[in-house]
């Protein structure tokens, strides 16, 4: 009865299929999943995959934005457009609220807030009793992430114990947790930055405009180009310059650096990434540059 063997698929098809499989497993096994949506390219791809996994049904779980309060306006506009177009339920876990409630020390209006995200995230998870949170993290981003399971178990304090991870064999993702514990699920674990861009191109995944080259005022701080705006003001001695730039990641506006680039479209970006010498985090994230194990330490405390 079977017809002749169908043609082979390529590695993007396999990565896509695997991610969809993981998303369906977690949603089937957990009671209250949520998708962490930052508006960055990885979470844009993750959302795209989650929508596919359940089409034509609506996404059977909400998305949560961990909001540092230091946003690029383009990213918030993008977030709201996605939520409206796809009919999503949006929860916001606010760092500002955590500061206002005295849950975390106030680093000042222009201080870096990425570390404070952990508290807002854990509060958000507890408030909504989420037992699984999808994140767009990839293993090629950082040496601690390279060691993390696809389903990463977190204890009652949201902590990751890298020395006692659950064995994770085959595609048997094991999502059982007791009350108060939760999981982080990383369906994009095996994707690289280049895979993400090639997939965005293939699928026409919409992105915030700041990923594409545009001219804006920037200052050089700690070797990074920061966009001058509501939360980044030049300090004495810092010179405001105008350059053609784009962002390789999206995070807190006070510590996410831009790269000088003329890449205005996806093909140009893919070309640029194929020959670049600097990693995504190295180029653009001040928060991971402080110590050799910065990411591991933050994950232990409950970060994504």
């Amino acid at each position, binding site marked *: 009865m079977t017809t002749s063997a*169908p043609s082979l698929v390529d*590695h993007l098809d*396999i990565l*896509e299929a695997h991610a969809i499989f993981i998303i369906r497993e977690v949603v089937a096994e957990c009671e209250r999943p949520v998708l962490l949506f930052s508006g960055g390219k990885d979470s844009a791809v993750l959302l795209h995959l989650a929508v596919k*996994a*359940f089409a*034509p049904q609506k996404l059977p779980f909400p998305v949560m934005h961990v909001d540092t309060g230091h946003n690029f306006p383009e990213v918030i506009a993008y977030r709201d457009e996605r939520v409206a177009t796809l009919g999503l339920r949006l929860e916001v876990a606010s760092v500002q609220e955590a500061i206002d409630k005295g849950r975390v020390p106030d680093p000042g209006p222009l201080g870096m807030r990425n570390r404070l995200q952990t508290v807002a995230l854990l509060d958000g998870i507890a408030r909504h009793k989420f037992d699984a949170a999808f994140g767009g993290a990839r293993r*090629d981003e950082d040496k601690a992430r390279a060691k993390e399971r696809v389903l990463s178990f977190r204890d009652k304090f949201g902590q990751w114990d890298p020395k006692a991870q659950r*064995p994770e064999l*085959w595609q048997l993702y094991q999502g059982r947790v007791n009350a108060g514990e939760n999981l982080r699920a990383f369906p994009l674990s095996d994707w690289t930055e280049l895979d993400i861009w090639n997939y965005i191109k293939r699928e026409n995944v919409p992105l915030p405009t700041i990923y594409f080259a545009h001219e804006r005022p920037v200052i050089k701080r700690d070797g990074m180009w920061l966009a001058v705006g509501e939360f980044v003001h030049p300090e004495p001695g810092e010179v405001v310059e105008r350059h053609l730039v784009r962002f390789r990641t999206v995070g807190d506006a006070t510590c996410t650096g831009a790269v000088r680039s003329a890449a205005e479209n996806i093909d140009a970006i893919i070309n640029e990434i194929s020959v670049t010498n600097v990693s995504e985090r190295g180029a653009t994230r001040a928060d991971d540059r402080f110590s050799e194990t910065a990411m591991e330490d933050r994950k232990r405390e409950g970060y994504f």
Partner: protein
Amino acid sequence: MSESTTDLLRFATIGSVDDGKSTLIGRLLVDTRQLFDDQLEAVAHASAKRGVGDLDLSFVTDGLRAEREQGITIDVAYRYAATPTRKFVIADCPGHVQYTRNMATGASTADVALVVLDATTGLKEQTRRHLCIAALLGVRYVIVAANKMDLAQWSQSTYNAVVSQMNDVGTRLGFSDTVVIPVSALRGDNVVERGFEASWYSGPTVLQALEEAPAGLWANSEAGARLPIQWVLRQHGGGRTYAGMVTGSHFSVGDAVTLLPSGVTATITGINGPRGSMTSAVPGLSVDLDIDQDTDAGRGDLLATAPLPTVTDEFEATLCWFSDRPLTPNSRLRLKHTTRSTPVRVNTISGTLDVETLTVTPTDQLVTNDIGLVSLLTADPIVVDDYRANRVTGSFILIDEVTNATVAAGMIGHASFI
């Protein structure tokens, strides 16, 4: 794992402590230019801080604080490399016996094992152990880097000794093919760049061997197609389709399928893939199937084409036991198999496998890191294939019902060498 593609290869790296595995992976990544300047700088910085020279390549892979401090590898690190012909997913596995669970995690999805051994000392017990576990987990193709050949003055007889040791092991464990390559990971000879010291060697470099290794070994057009149902999708207009990942062989529209365990037969009337409707779906794809029968099928059921899998509640299996508490007969646990989970009881434990001699010693309990032969009884029937025939429908894990810890990995049936 059971994918129908040749442009993605998953391989696991195994080897005994200090044989040079981390250095080899570091070399592979550096010489294929997978590392960015700032990552290389960070490695150089870490090397200098610990007074271990300019660039200790092994720091490229060891990522956790405890690992750097103790100089050992605890858990699998996943690395990615791409050449113009292939994307590689590398599971860099730890060597110590107490981290066998992590090694098994890395090897369970691998098509190929890359074995690093110190040619000057030969095959060590730990490497034999890992080769045995890799073989149990279904790895059939092995690439061996006979490392530190610079210390052996590139002696052909040293290399030949490794080849004969490996042939011996390979025959016993049933590997389909074993390629042995003389290398110096430290200097880079025959890893990515060809070395000129071993003029007598004309085989592939490590990278060439990886580019030529067979991928997607588990897709088998002779086997039946299986779709363990993950989720039932409600379609516009009221119909339902069954979503899951294809394994074994491919499904085509018009195929006769059997829904198991119920045994209802039906015909596939439609296949939806991530890019729309399709006429057939190969292993490794996530799809949803439409059939011409109205059934109450749900998560945990399975759609299959002939030859059909077995519906059973009592079966023999090979277990890798991970827990610190021993496993004894009559223990009650939870079993997760494909998308179904059910209570399970241990009927009998018949023996443990000595991974050195491949002999089975009778026993009535399993302790941490034991490989045991057991018979299990499940509360609900499960739909299985022998692990050698299908890695997805042939595998399961056992879960502690109180702590929810994953305490064992199991394979239906047992390997031919047991």
